[in-house]
């Protein structure tokens, strides 16, 4: 097998029966765990939200590892490089949007600060939106 300098093997896609079963089992457990946490609802809301987001990210890694076999990619890891860059852009877009919108009074988070709810009342009045 000759190796060219930009040899990107289609190793994403190769796997063993065992790796697919493990990935499937772990994904099932993580999904059901998140579901039970929410349905049970006995813990504080913020704890539940943080926990289910952590569970979703864990499942992301499980599927990248066991279904997409990202760890088994050969040396110049172009697939991983592209993924990391996408993750950076995704992070900027999502966190940036939330951060900016949180600072605008458009965000209707009824916290201790009165201004967001005031703002939503003004918006409702200004835009002639019927309740």
């Amino acid at each position, binding site marked *: 097998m000759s190796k060219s300098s930009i040899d990107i093997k289609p190793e994403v896609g190769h796997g063993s029966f065992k790796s697919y079963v493990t990935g499937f089992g772990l994904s099932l457990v993580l999904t059901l765990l998140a579901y039970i946490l929410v349905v049970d*609802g006995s813990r504080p809301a913020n704890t539940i939200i943080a926990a*289910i987001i952590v569970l979703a990210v864990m499942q992301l890694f499980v*599927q990248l590892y066991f279904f997409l076999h990202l760890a088994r990619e050969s040396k110049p890891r172009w697939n991983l490089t592209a993924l990391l860059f996408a993750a950076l852009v995704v992070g900027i877009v999502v966190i940036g949007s939330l951060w900016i919108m949180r600072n605008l009074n458009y965000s209707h988070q009824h916290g201790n600060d009165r201004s967001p709810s005031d703002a939503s009342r003004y918006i409702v009045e200004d835009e002639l939106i019927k309740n």
Partner: protein
Amino acid sequence: MSNTAVQPVETAQSMEHDNDSKTIFGFWVYLMTDCVVFASLFATFAVLRTSTFGDPSGNELFSLPFVLVETLILLTSSFTCGLAMLAAHRKDQAKVIAWFGVTFLLGIAFLSLELTEFSHLAHEGNSWTRSGFLSAFFTLVGTHGLHITTGLLWMIVLLVQIAKRGLVTSTMRRLTMLSLFWHFLDIIWIFIFTIVYLVGAV
């Protein structure tokens, strides 16, 4: 003598292999850009999540057990898609068609559940025009559903090609890309399930 005769064939094969690798890598890059599309829709949804102006929020609209069934169906289809790829690497054509057939049926089941949910919501007057929250919801989940539909059409075309030509280089390359696409859509769904449905119900 025999070496020189074999050499060109080997080079041609490895060149073809390299080209396949590049095509698959190109498809992977497409998936990464699709990630960014979904990220912007997720960000929009997160911002508009509470913009209901007194209209029903996700908590009142969504049925969690229903969505859990959808999630498990899609997860299982991702798994059977993996089993189909294992069969493809063993060159077991009958199994490839069987497992992709199962994946296809699970995909159809998922899509019909999603459309049932959509039509139910629209029927009750909670369509995308009602609030910012519902606009963002239909855009995000609808875009995922559109991807699933595309994946199902692709699956039909590819199964016909495999039945006709067998597991040759070109169909193997397309199978690899389709399986990447399908696993990718399942990963996107994990986040829709978590951010849209579970966080909405907390």
